[in-house]
């Protein structure tokens, strides 16, 4: 017998600090597998955000930078311009990318920076204890929307893929789901494509993962996936928005 699935080399041996059933770990693993499969590990540098995945700089087994909240795409721009022969990815959550970091992601995407941005969307702020995110659904209760998100007062969730799709420069934009093993297998394909295009210097690539937050949603791992399937997928459609490398 030979090993057909085990810890990728692009992950360190550290235990992930995520909650039981949180799908951050799945996203990390997909990215690490893809980096290994594409032979990119020794040429890759990553940027960790502020949020639950702030320790991502410890989990990926390569040179990593820890960014200020929301600034990862700006760091990535500086990194890629400083070492154009190397490859760069960022890994960011809802608050980091869609709240405080909106300017940085829009402009890095608009410049067509040769980086890959991975965006984990779980409709809430996990690390700080379950506050409302720009992606929190209408009427969803969080600690800062205790009566439910009132869209008349503070608007609707932001669909980042759609927003970035309005720009000319981005090369690849796809939203995927991590909500079942089958979905995860499909998500892996998007991750591989995004990083392959990165390796080939094609341009800006972006993958949004629909994910869960069992702890702050007050559910267990399985319940949270069901809730996300029923409530998040109708609003955040899983689809490819742009693939400039696709044969017609």
């Amino acid at each position, binding site marked *: 017998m030979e090993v057909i699935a085990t810890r990728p080399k692009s992950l360190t041996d550290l235990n992930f600090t995520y909650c039981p059933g949180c799908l951050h770990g799945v996203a990390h693993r997909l990215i690490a597998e893809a980096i290994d499969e594409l032979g990119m590990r020794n040429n890759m540098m990553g940027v960790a955000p502020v949020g639950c995945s702030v*320790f991502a700089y410890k989990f990926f087994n390569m040179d*990593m930078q*820890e960014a200020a909240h929301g600034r990862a795409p700006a760091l990535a721009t500086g990194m890629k311009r400083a070492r154009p022969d190397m490859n760069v990815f960022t890994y960011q959550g809802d608050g980091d990318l869609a709240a405080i970091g909106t300017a940085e992601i829009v*402009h890095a995407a608009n410049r067509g920076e040769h980086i890959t941005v991975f965006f984990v969307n779980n409709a809430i702020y996990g690390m700080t204890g379950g506050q409302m995110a720009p992606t929190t659904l209408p009427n969803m209760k969080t600690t800062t929307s205790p009566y439910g998100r009132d869209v008349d007062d503070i608007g609707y969730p932001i669909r980042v893929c759609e927003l970035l799709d309005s720009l000319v420069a981005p090369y690849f934009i796809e939203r995927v789901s991590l909500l079942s093993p089958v979905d995860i297998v499909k998500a892996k394909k998007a991750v591989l494509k995004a990083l392959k295009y990165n390796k080939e210097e094609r341009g800006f690539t972006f993958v949004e993962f629909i994910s869960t937050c069992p702890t702050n949603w007050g559910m267990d791992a399985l319940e949270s996936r069901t809730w996300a399937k029923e409530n998040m997928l109708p609003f955040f459609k899983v689809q490819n928005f742009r693939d400039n490398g696709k044969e017609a």
Partner: protein
Amino acid sequence: MANKVLMKGNEAVAEAAIRAGCRLYFAYPITPQSELIEYMARMMPKVDGVFVQAESEIAAINMVYGASGCGRRVMTSSSSPGIALKQEGISYLAGANLPAVIINVQRGGPGLGDIQPAQGDYFQATRGGGNGDYYTPVLAPSTVQEFADMASLAFDLADKYRNPVLILSDGLLGQMMEPVEFQDTKTPEELKALDNQHLDWCCCPNEDEPNHHHHEINSLEIDPVVLEKHVLKLADKYAEITANEQRWEEYNVNDDNEILVVAFGTASRICKSSIDDLNKTGHNVGLVRPITLWPYPYEAVSEAVGPKVKKVIVFELNLGQMVEDVRLGVNGKVPVDFMGKVGGLVFTPEEVKAKIKENL
């Protein structure tokens, strides 16, 4: 270009930075330093360097962080309100032990203020304007030549100590034209050496085990015991910089001084004119001009207070910021007085003379 030319301060420092090996520059336009970013936009491509006009000063300082984390010489510049935006990034640079050069061409404040020269960012620059315990060396030029020379000094200090370094200039120096003699441009070998000087800690090409590296550019230490060690190490660095990198100028400082003036940057130029006039008419006034505002030359200021000095007078283009450091240095030896000018206005040599004469 010839090595000696007549040039505007903003452009001179940009040219000097390029010659000192800076090949990455990220910034946002703001008066009175837009000539700096425009010069970089024209010149960086000519040396195969990188110029990006960022979407904000915040984005620019974070691009600097990313590039610095890759071990390369990188710079940004702005003016007071934009430097305020960069404070988060500067704190992160300091916390992560990253070299970088940041130029502040000061203007009137607070808030949007105006676009005329001022020295109102002294506290922001020397007290670590962002969060937490940190310092950045602060260099204060008073001529266009000095402004230009400080570019390579700033990069050298930044690389030596792995720290952000601030050049605190102002709109007057940024806009005025004076003769400048430039240092030679770094040779390709020197540039390569600069790019390779930080490979032991920066993000750079990797190998498989056993030589695989996992460098972390980071200011987060969630374990307080570890954070304490980290901050105490920063403190050791700041103590070393304080011991070795103080710089100042003494102008007519001698045992017969009746008054000692302390001033920095543009204010010191005006004071020198006034002092020259007064000294021609039989008075004896000296000037200490701090060149590093951090580390502050406290002992130098103290020792410059001669036995006959009646008073130390501090002149600044603000409500009184460096005067606090002068009081610390003088430590009660003699009274310390102050004259300021705010709103982006600059005092005249006559106003300075009058203030000194009051006390003679």
